[in-house]
């Protein structure tokens, strides 16, 4: 339970930070296309939460829509198995969400969907469908789906 609470808190903090400051491209780390644990995360990127090296990870993929390139959240979770736990780590969750795998529900944290739009001075933040403008640089559009 403590881990779930800590995860939810990390998620909220990350969401707030993405809304406020966005995600700079240089903070994104490439995922291993073929991880040592057997996961395959081609074209995926990640950040650690809390930054710079927290116990949680958030995995993204870039998407393209009419507004340009954005980042879409794929999974959030612990980076390593807690001791005596068989809980899925973030890389396993992300791996199973990619094509070729049946979908899995991701706990009770909901789906955070940040979008990163580079090099714009008029970016928006989308939370639960609402839109507000005015974030200054590389930033994130976030919506929390139920």
């Amino acid at each position, binding site marked *: 339970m403590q881990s779930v609470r800590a995860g939810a808190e990390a998620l909220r903090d990350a969401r707030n930070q993405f809304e406020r400051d966005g995600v700079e491209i240089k903070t994104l780390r490439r995922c291993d296309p073929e991880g040592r644990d057997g996961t395959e995360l081609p074209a995926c990127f990640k950040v650690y939460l809390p930054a710079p090296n927290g116990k949680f990870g958030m995995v993204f993929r870039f998407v393209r829509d009419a507004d340009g390139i954005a980042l879409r959240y794929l999974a959030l979770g612990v980076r390593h198995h807690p001791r005596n736990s068989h809980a899925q780590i973030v890389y396993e969750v992300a791996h199973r969400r990619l094509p070729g795998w049946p979908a899995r*529900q991701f706990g009770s944290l909901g789906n955070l969907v940040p979008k990163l739009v580079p090099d714009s001075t008029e970016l928006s933040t989308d939370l639960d469908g609402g839109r507000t403008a005015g974030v200054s640089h590389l930033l994130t559009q976030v919506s929390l789906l139920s």
Partner: protein
Amino acid sequence: MEQPPHIKVSGALEGEFIITEERSANEFVITRDTSWEAMLGKGERAATAEEVAALEAEHGPFQPADGEG
């Protein structure tokens, strides 16, 4: 791997679901579809490697993979 049947639900529940169990002809267990495809918004597609490379060229390099996953 065989993909589970996919359905769209509207009413008390809304959204994309998959059937995870068929208990009888009239009884099913469904779970929300949280696959990558279901996450994509309308008019959205995965960015190509070239598009991501262009982004990196313009804004600086991503951090390299660290072997963790």
